[in-house]
């Protein structure tokens, strides 16, 4: 079953030097599966994620032939309709907990804010739900975390708090924008396992945006590779090593490997025909 369908999505910014297209005709369908979007900085992967939630402010423009979520036309949806979708049905986890959590508000208050405002939940019930969400992301002493400010938490804890926050309304689709890039490898693996469990047990759809091809390959079912706003290759994650497109191959081969040769790492060829 298709949860999200995007046809020919374009995101345009008007600048002094003319319009710049950050996303140029992206189409994909997503079921209850894990879809990875990979590319370098500026490839339009984050813009694609944000465009699904129509979270691009003027002067940016979103155009698409069709963009539907669970039968609802996202392009025609009004701002109140979108507000009902955002968070509740489609949630987004941002890259860096340092910049995405409110620094002057305790974690508990931030977790409960949505419940209190949106669902008019009584304080005790909201607190119980927030603690349950923190437990779901394997935070050991949720009571202490509830009473902490974001700067008192480590990067991995902060990222887990953000994931917990997004999971409270039980969304159908989670968009995770580089959820582990700010984390260490060991913590990264933990956070990914948590996300993986949640996707499996709750049957969510997941869009996982990252610049790390190998991470995406291990974690997702399907991978879209983006370059300069276009999808250059779409393939099953398990076939990644057999990638045909030179850009995908370039992204793979420029990573150092343990026990690999110490010669110069191959640089990406950005001048080939496909790059235009």
């Amino acid at each position, binding site marked *: 079953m298709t949860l999200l369908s995007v046809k020919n999505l374009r995101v345009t910014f008007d600048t002094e030097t003319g319009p710049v297209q950050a996303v140029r005709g992206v189409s994909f369908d997503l079921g209850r599966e894990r879809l990875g979007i990979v590319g*370098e*900085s500026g490839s339009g992967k984050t813009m694609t994620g944000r465009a699904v939630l129509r979270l691009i402010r003027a002067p940016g423009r979103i155009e698409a032939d069709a963009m539907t979520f669970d039968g609802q036309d996202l392009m025609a949806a009004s701002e109140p309709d979108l507000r009902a979708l955002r968070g509740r049905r489609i949630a987004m986890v941002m890259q860096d907990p340092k910049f995405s959590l409110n620094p002057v508000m305790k974690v508990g208050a931030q977790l409960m804010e949505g419940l209190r405002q949106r669902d008019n939940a009584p304080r005790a019930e909201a607190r119980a739900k927030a603690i349950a969400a923190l437990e779901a992301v394997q935070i050991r002493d949720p009571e202490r975390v509830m009473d902490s400010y974001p700067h008192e938490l*480590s*990067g991995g804890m902060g990222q887990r708090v953000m994931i917990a926050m997004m999971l409270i309304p039980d969304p159908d689709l989670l968009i995770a924008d580089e959820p582990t890039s700010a984390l*260490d*490898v*060991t*913590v*990264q*693996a933990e956070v990914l396992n948590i996300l993986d469990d949640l996707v499996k047990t709750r049957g969510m759809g997941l869009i996982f945006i990252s*610049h*790390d*091809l*190998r*991470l995406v*390959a*291990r974690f997702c079912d399907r991978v879209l590779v983006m370059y300069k706003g276009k999808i250059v290759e779409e393939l099953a994650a398990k076939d*990644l*090593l057999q990638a045909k497109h030179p850009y995908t191959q*370039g*992204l793979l081969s*420029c*990573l*150092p*490997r*343990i*026990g*690999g040769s*110490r010669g*110069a*790492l*191959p*640089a*990406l060829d950005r001048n080939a025909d496909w790059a235009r």
Partner: protein
Amino acid sequence: MALIEIENLSVTFATAGRKVRAVQDVSFKVEAQQSFGLVGESGSGKSTILRAICGMAPITGGQIRIDGKPLPTPRGRAFAAQVQMVFQDPYASLHPRHTVDRVLSEPLAIHGQGGSDAKIEQALIDVGLPPAFRFRYPHQLSGGQRQRVAIARALMLQPQILLLDEPTSALDASVQAETLNLLSRLRAERGLTFVMVSHDLAVIDHMCDRVLVMQNGQAVEELSREALASAAMTTPYARALFAASADRMLEG
């Protein structure tokens, strides 16, 4: 004799009412023209060691010797001419209102060296940037270009030792490859000695001859490159780090 000798180094930060032992009794040696890696998760003390070498962390025990001589406190100009550091985040480590020219000419001015015009142009060429970038501000550069400027700045005084604190972890995979290639080339050309900190074992393996695995401020295990490649680590933590490494994930 080793170029850098670190013996039972301890660093303790005293904050309101409690003491944080960031580095506890860590020892290692780096030979001249070798490349040494420090790896571990956040808070393991790896960056603190680099900062302690530069005199930017409170050393509470042990000794750091370079060329067999204990380091003076404060470190002074002779130290700066010999040892330089490249920081993690090129978005934070370059002054936003200083041009590339000013960033690169400052060390020369402090050390009273002339001929900065020619030296700056050469420094930019050496790190693979066009000389026209000289009068740009950091916000007019990409992340990879900024890190090249930071490397050029560190090399202005022709140091012998370069301390690299996660030099590529803020960069994309493809830009990381270019930056690592640049560092390898500069090391070969100038006979530099590297001490490199990273949380990415694959990067450390690519760049370093030996690596020290750290956890909670303590040295866990020192590995040669061969031992790392053949997964011959003996401690469970080093093994866990190895298993979690991104480049193992395809096989995993």
